[in-house]
């Protein structure tokens, strides 16, 4: 059985699991512990088969479904295999976690949840496998629908419904744009298979139209500024494992689509596409991280940080396009590898962190950073997993987040060799933006971890218990992957060689010479090299040595006492720095970016209340006017339907005469 069959079997299997889950009558806990782990098995199979398929040659098959002249075409090449690997690994962890999570927490009818969850997984797999526009769109929209239903699980809450609505609307408009993009690509001979589109040669103008449509359409799903607007609403609304999947995998399917269209289906590329992608990406990255810094809801914070990472990924693909258009394919290969690697890493640690928030909410039923604190003592497991995720997302060596960001920086440093001087001038600015985003990300995540897990609980109610065994297993799975990919990046990166060869026509062996299992190099080893293992070894060694020396020479007696309170004596949890406080410096510096409304109490206020609300200006710049215009227009046409039959008769009369005169 070929790896394609195996891969193709998994979505079907998931469908089956979902349907049987819908049918089964087991009690909530047993239901969850039975069906979600079953789904996890599918994830494992998918991951293995996909890993095998990356290096295999593309395989395709035609299913007996679909439109008359357009049966479903399925194709498994290196790129889809890579993203399927991502899906498989992440979904395994999430499914295991769900076994515990949905078993006890998370409202909603468990049977429907199970069905929607597995349909969601299956549709994502099919999106990655589709080889014709129709199947792609079907899977794409099914994915949107399934995730929508998962988002509105707690549909009694008004804000949840609003979030879901916003999400689906943006998703649908984006989908129509993608559809039009395919309409442009198929070049009027109504052959919607990707093969036919590959062979088409579009004029430069139409190609650009297609690219921009794709950028908009997929951007609406990935959350590029300014079509990110749904993301920070929908992620907090959804149950945490679902937020994890959406942020970890679903956003990546959009990246996949963008790469598929711009590198595979379009036969040409223009250098300014790269510039557009690069600038949009960096703007998105900086924007996302700055907004993440001022959030007070932990899931919103993570959602904005997803926007940031997606921006980084987009910037990477932009650079890839740039190099590719200037035939610097060796560099393009490196950029592509870095981009994809960051996709994978972000999927892992972001999902991990979302699961952590899930356990926290599960334990404390609080989501606001203003209430949490000190959980490291009550939930050590979750705290440990969270720490790993934190270090990874902060881009700290020796974890995986650093590895991909290291590669990206290398790519940026290589780009001055671009022939176009303006572009090479652009690069320092771009690098600076990237560096800023990465650094502020560290700030953000320290805020997240510190406020949630360290210090003292800010509200008495926020006392948690540690997560159950299923949840721990899920967290552990993802955490281990974060560490592994951080320590041995070369295995994954070198596995991307087929993708690079297929899409930018250069092998990674040239762009990463002498990379061994130990050393990750960029271009040439003497140019730059990084070895996470040695790195870790060094730290561990020094820590051990210093620890042993300290133990050896000095007795390690420890006395416990109250923290030093400067003699004030009434030190309590409310005196800790709050999430708002943490965000405040960023608020101060980048004030014009935010739409702030503060209400500060007067010094004489008996019961002082401090409230500050931060909103996204883009909503007021881009969206509100559109809505207003639509309302205005519909008010105008509303006048037409005036209720008087005479008027209606006049309409027909006028139409008649007008047409008669027209055809004269």
């Amino acid at each position, binding site marked *: 059985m070929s790896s394609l069959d195996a891969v193709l079997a998994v979505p079907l299997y998931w469908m089956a699991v979902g349907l049987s889950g819908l049918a089964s009558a087991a009690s909530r806990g047993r239901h969850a512990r039975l069906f979600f782990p079953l789904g996890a098995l599918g994830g494992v199979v998918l991951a293995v088969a996909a890993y095998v398929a990356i290096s295999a040659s593309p395989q395709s098959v035609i299913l007996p479904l679909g439109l008359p002249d357009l049966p479903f075409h399925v194709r498994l090449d290196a790129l889809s295999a890579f993203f399927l690997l991502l899906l498989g690994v992440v979904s395994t962890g999430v499914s295991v976690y769900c076994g515990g999570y949905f078993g006890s927490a998370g409202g909603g009818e468990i049977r429907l949840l199970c069905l929607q969850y597995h349909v969601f997984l299956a549709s994502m797999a099919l999106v990655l496998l589709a080889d014709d526009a129709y199947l792609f769109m079907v899977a794409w929209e099914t994915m949107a629908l399934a995730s929508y239903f998962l988002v509105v699980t707690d549909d009694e809450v008004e804000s949840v419904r609003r979030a879901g609505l916003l999400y689906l609307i943006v998703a649908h408009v984006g989908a129509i744009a993608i559809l039009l993009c395919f309409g442009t690509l198929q070049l009027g001979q109504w052959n919607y298979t990707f093969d036919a589109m590959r062979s088409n040669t579009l004029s430069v103008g139409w190609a650009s139209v297609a690219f921009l449509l794709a950028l908009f359409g997929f951007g609406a799903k990935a959350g590029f500024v300014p079509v990110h607007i749904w993301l920070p609403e929908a992620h907090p609304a959804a149950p945490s494992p679902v937020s994890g999947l959406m942020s970890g995998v679903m956003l990546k399917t959009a990246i996949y689509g963008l790469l598929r269209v711009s590198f595979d289906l379009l036969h040409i590329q223009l250098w300014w596409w790269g510039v557009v992608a690069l600038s949009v990406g960096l703007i998105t990255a900086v924007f996302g991280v700055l907004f993440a810094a001022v959030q007070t809801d932990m899931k919103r914070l993570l959602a904005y940080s997803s926007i940031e990472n997606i921006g980084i990924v987009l910037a990477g693909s932009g650079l890839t396009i740039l190099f590719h258009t200037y035939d610097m394919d060796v560099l393009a290969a490196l950029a592509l590898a870095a981009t994809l690697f960051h996709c994978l890493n972000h999927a892992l640690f972001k999902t991990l962190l979302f699961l952590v928030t899930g356990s926290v909410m599960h334990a404390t039923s609080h989501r606001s950073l203003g209430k949490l604190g000190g959980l490291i003592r009550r939930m050590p497991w979750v705290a440990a997993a969270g720490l790993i995720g934190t270090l990874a997302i902060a881009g700290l060596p020796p974890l995986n987040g650093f590895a991909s960001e290291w590669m990206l920086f290398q790519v940026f440093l290589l780009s001055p060799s671009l022939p176009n001087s303006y572009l090479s001038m652009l690069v320092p600015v771009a690098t600076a933006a990237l560096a800023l985003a990465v650094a502020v990300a560290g700030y953000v995540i320290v805020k997240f971890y510190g406020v949630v897990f360290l210090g003292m609980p800010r509200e008495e109610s926020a006392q948690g218990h540690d997560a159950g065994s299923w949840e721990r297993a899920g967290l552990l799975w993802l955490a281990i992957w974060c560490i592994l990919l951080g320590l041995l990046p070369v295995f994954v990166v070198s596995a991307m060689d087929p993708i690079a060869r297929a899409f930018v026509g250069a092998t990674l062996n040239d762009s990463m010479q002498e990379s061994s299992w130990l050393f990750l190099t960029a271009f040439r080893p003497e140019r730059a090299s990084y070895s996470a293992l040695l790195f870790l070894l060094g730290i561990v060694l020094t820590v051990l040595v210093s620890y042993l020396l300290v133990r050896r020479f000095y007795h390690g007696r420890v006395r416990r006492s109250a923290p030093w309170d400067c003699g004030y004596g009434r030190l309590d949890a409310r005196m800790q720095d709050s999430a708002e406080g943490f965000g405040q410096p960023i608020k101060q510096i980048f004030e014009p970016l935010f739409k702030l409304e503060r209400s500060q109490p007067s010094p004489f206020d008996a019961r002082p209340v401090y409230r500050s609300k931060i909103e996204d200006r883009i909503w007021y710049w881009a969206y509100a006017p559109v809505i207003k215009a639509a309302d205005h227009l519909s008010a105008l046409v*509303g006048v037409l*339907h005036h*209720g008087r*039959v*005479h008027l209606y008769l*006049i309409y027909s*009369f006028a139409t008649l005469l007008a047409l*008669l005169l027209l055809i004269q």
Partner: protein
Amino acid sequence: MTLSFTQQLINLMACLLLLIAFAMVSQRRILRLIYLFALQGLVLAINTAVVALATQQPHLYFSAALTLGLKVIVLPWLLHRLIDRLNIRWDIETLLNIPTIMLVGIVVVIIAFNLALPISQLAGTITRSSLGIAMASVLLSFLMMITRRKAVPQVIGFLAMENGLFFAATSATYGMPMVVELGIALDVLVGTFIFGIFFFQIRETFDSLDIHHLEKLKEKT
């Protein structure tokens, strides 16, 4: 060239029809309106008969008879009984004042004639010159429906329009095939009955036949 007697006769009828159409547009009294409608039907019937005489088309005699029966006797009688039952005889107020309507009517007639010109070139019938008039009277009754505020005159306008169509059919093509003629006649008859039912429904619901009661369904702004 000099026109044959029948042709002159037909043109005369056509002019009469146009005249009646204008009269209906400008008529204020509902009873007169019904009489005018009957008159229109009569002229139509005569015209059809003349055409039949001139062209020896047997089925035209039939449709002439049909017209006479339906539009000169039955429908006016129905309407008359209707307004007796609903006793509405007072004046009809129009939306626009009469002269304006007349002016619009003139414009409509001009347009109609211009449109009809190429077609009547094509039509090989001795009645072709009256095609424009037919179209004009159709549009005029359309205009009448637009400008009337009461239910009954609107219906009369509707029927008058149907007359115009019938006239067009005879003048352009010596009438439609028999089946169609019958079908149309049936529809008209049923339609009138249903209109009658409606008058009573409207009457008992709004105790008036003024259409401005029927302006509730609109887009709330």
